[in-house]
């Protein structure tokens, strides 16, 4: 059996503050094949963002290891580009410069100056942001900012693209539009994607597999659902698709029947 592309092995995460320690994640193991689109879904506070940060290398797991192509992940790097929930564009740079910063850094040796410009434009084109390339983040809408964030992450040519609730702060229409764009980019580039979400429809629509997390503390993987829907997927047709409906209700049942969020008193 060949080695998995990305694998998380027995991840434990314990946060200690003062004398008390909280176990956030417990025994999380997951393998991801190249080109797979994986969603991680769970109620807020289940540690799914922590899990993503561990894969990104931004947070160090208490126990357990993350392997990417056989190498241990122990620091952040452009091979695991992150699209942050609140876009995290640098406000003093233009849209173009934000992407260019990443391109210049990642391809400082391997690409010439002209090639780097070319590559920046190519990625802005991919998210259809060429028209606003000289605007500052404060001058474009939330959806556009997120698209630039995606362009910046894609421009790093990551082995795994990490999306941390990328559409959480957007309105429903913009969100649908961006989801379509992400699907299209995924179809085109066949990148490996790990996405955090709390939106059931989004998870079913985009993913090959949905990882459902139990509630914290000590959250673990409750169930993994295969979404056997052919691509390309169209949201309108899927609305009445039997597989789609079955997957959707499976996730809903997991989240709202078996692992209902217990309100903290």
């Amino acid at each position, binding site marked *: 059996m060949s080695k998995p592309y990305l694998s998380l092995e027995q991840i434990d995460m314990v946060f200690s503050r003062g004398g008390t320690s909280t176990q956030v994640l417990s025994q999380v193991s997951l393998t991801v094949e190249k080109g797979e689109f994986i969603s991680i879904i769970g109620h807020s506070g289940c540690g799914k963002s922590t899990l993503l940060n561990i894969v*990104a*290398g*931004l947070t160090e797991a208490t126990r357990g290891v993350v392997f990417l192509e056989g190498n241990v992940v122990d*620091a*952040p*790097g*452009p091979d*695991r*580009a*992150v699209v*942050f929930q*609140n*876009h*995290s*564009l*640098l*406000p*003093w740079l233009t849209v173009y410069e934000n992407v260019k*910063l*990443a391109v210049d*850094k*990642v391809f400082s040796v391997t690409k010439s100056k002209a090639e780097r410009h070319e590559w920046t434009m190519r990625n802005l084109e991919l998210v259809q942001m060429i028209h606003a390339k000289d605007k*500052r*983040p*404060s001058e474009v809408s939330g959806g556009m*900012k997120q698209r630039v964030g995606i362009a910046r992450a894609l421009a*790093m040519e990551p082995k795994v693209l990490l999306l941390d609730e990328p559409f959480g702060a957007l309105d429903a229409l913009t969100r649908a539009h961006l989801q379509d764009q992400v699907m299209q980019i995924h179809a085109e580039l066949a990148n490996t994607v790990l996405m955090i979400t709390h939106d059931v429809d989004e998870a079913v629509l985009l993913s090959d597999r949905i990882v459902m997390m139990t509630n914290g503390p000590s959250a673990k993987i409750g169930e993994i659902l295969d979404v056997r829907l052919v691509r390309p997927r169209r949201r309108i047709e899927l609305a009445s698709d039997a597989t789609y409906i079955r997957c959707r209700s499976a996730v809903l049942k997991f989240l709202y029947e078996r692992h209902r969020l217990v309100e903290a008193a």
Partner: protein
Amino acid sequence: MTASPVRINSKAQSQTQAKVLTLVTPKMSVAPRPFLQWLYAVAGHIVPPLVTLVFLLVLWEVICSSPTASVPPPSRVVSETWELIAHPFYVGQGVDQGLFWHVLASLKRVALGYCLAAIAGIALGTLVGQSEWAMRGLDPIFQVLRTVPPLAWLPLSLAAFKDGNPSAIFVIFITAIWPIIINTAVGIRNIPQDYQNVARVLRLNQFEYFTKIMVPAAAPYIFTGLRIGIGLSWLAIVAAEMLIGGVGIGFFIWDAWNSSRISDIILALIYVGVVGYLLDRTIAFVANTVTRNTASA
């Protein structure tokens, strides 16, 4: 008979209404002449302070108009200091110089002390903002030293430098540096985690992090410190110069007091105020230009 006037009346009313509408709508849609609008806006900003100023001058004139008043009224200030007002560039012997030269001498001291404070302050602030240990080690000392009044440093610096001019510059330096250090440190400590994460994912090195993330992100705070610093510098220079002597607006005031030229003092105060205001506006302008694009998105 009774019905017809009512009918006519209502008809006339509806006609008038229609007329008013057709008259009003084009008036509203015509763009107001930009020049008039501009004039109106300018007048709105200039007239109120002018009114206040005239009111205060008249009040001052009235209060100090008696011949026994210890402070001269504005009319006498102008007549007594006319020589100084008319010849700001006068060059004489020793400290007998036009007011422009006094102000320039003070500005030179401030410029030198303030620039040194800006460089050292931003460097130390960066250190304290970035390193937990530097903060623990230096912050308590800063917090104590910054409460020492500027003039209290003067005897010590006179003892150290054995000369008036470097002592005055040192006093400016030590006055302006604290707000610069503290604001820079706060700015750097407040760099959003998001930007730091971006830097980590991109694996920016120390130098790239400093130039591409830290400086632009902390710039608004740094400029706040610089702006407070310039104000304090100007406050301190006048006091310091009173003690060290030589050419300078501070000594000019002290000299005028010793020769009981109250009108000269008042004129010098106006100079000090206006120059201080201009210094503040200059730094504010630079800050606005530089940090225009750093407001968070």
